[in-house]
């Protein structure tokens, strides 16, 4: 004897299917169908208490505030990422520029002269690497380069170049605490 399938019984119990003749002959299928109908009826009567109308506005306000707070946390993490991750990367990139400028200047300078800092004028033979002050004025990014360069001496440029070769971003991440790192990963995933 082939019994009525479970999904067919569900359809019949929900009123979406015609009862097959088998149901009149088979006590097992009949019992199963009765049980499904009883469970449906019991479940349908199980109301959920409805909150007061004032609750809905309160709930909306809570969601609104929580989302604003989440945005604030995202913004703070962005700042942290920019400050603690991109700053070393920026320093590494600058180091490469300064190192190139330094070696170019040293190659062009009279023997024995060691520049104290990567002087823009000394890079005249390499205008693509280090633009003139006029070009810098036209490009705000190079303003930043010039401003940062003014605060550095040769030793720090050398150290930055070594750091850049070893992976400034990795080191910056390594400097974060475990909690900061986990949150930074979560934020980076969110930002993707």
């Amino acid at each position, binding site marked *: 004897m082939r019994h009525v399938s479970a999904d067919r019984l569900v359809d019949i119990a929900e009123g979406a299917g015609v009862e097959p003749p088998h149901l009149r002959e088979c006590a097992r299928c009949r019992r199963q169908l009765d049980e499904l109908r009883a469970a449906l009826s019991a479940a349908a*009567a199980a109301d959920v208490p409805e909150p007061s109308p004032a609750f809905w506005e309160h709930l909306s306000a809570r969601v609104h505030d929580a989302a604003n707070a989440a945005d604030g946390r995202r913004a703070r993490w962005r700042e942290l990422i920019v400050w603690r991750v991109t700053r070393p990367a920026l320093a590494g*990139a600058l180091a490469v520029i300064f190192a190139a400028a330094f070696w170019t200047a040293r190659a062009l300078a009279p023997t024995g002269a060691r520049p104290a800092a990567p002087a823009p004028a000394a890079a005249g033979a390499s205008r693509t690497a280090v633009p003139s002050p006029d070009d810098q004025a036209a490009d705000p990014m190079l303003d930043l380069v010039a401003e940062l360069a003014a605060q550095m001496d040769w030793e720090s440029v050398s150290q930055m170049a070594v750091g850049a070769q070893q992976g400034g971003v990795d080191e910056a991440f390594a400097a974060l605490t475990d909690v900061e790192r986990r949150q930074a990963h979560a934020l980076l995933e969110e930002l993707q």
Partner: protein
Amino acid sequence: MSSSLAWTLRAGLSERAGSWESAANRRFSGDRPAMAAETPLDELSEPALVGACLAGRPGAFDLVVARHRRNVYLLCYRFLGNHEDASDHTQEVFLRAYRGLRAFRGQSTLATWFYRIGVNVCLNSVAAKRPPSLPLDGRDRADVSRENASDRLLRCERAAQVRAAIARLPRRQRAVLILRMYHEMSHQEIAGALDSTAGAVKANFFHALANLKKLLDKDRA
């Protein structure tokens, strides 16, 4: 090298200028200039409303919340059995939706998407240990005007008993039963929300009802 250098320098400059605020940060704030020709939010289609949220239009996500909060709350209540947990989890569902709105591509309705998030949030919740709460104001769906006090008490007790039995069902069966019985979702829609098939959903529903009947019989015995 040059592109990463440019990115790095731009990041540094942006930091200096403090200009890292994204559209997501402006979804709620009112700092976006109003556009005279904008269609009122409540006249937008659902995809357009989602687009307005993503564009940071003030009030857009508030309207989404207002439209779906009752269904999400009732879903959470069905899973968790008390008002406090249902409120907390409803907020969590909307927060997750807010953060993940970019991932919503209109492959389902927003309602189905919220149910999907809601089921995940509630099933993964470990906090829901509070006892079931009593009705807040007795505004149940049944017509209570002609019901005497003892009948009403009996009905409330019976409803609580059924809800408690549903809470003891296996997770998948519970999710299917709640979505089918109380949120009028088709088997196909439930399959979409639970990453399943309509056939598997029907099988889950069958077992959920059969187990519910057994649990209720056992409670009465």
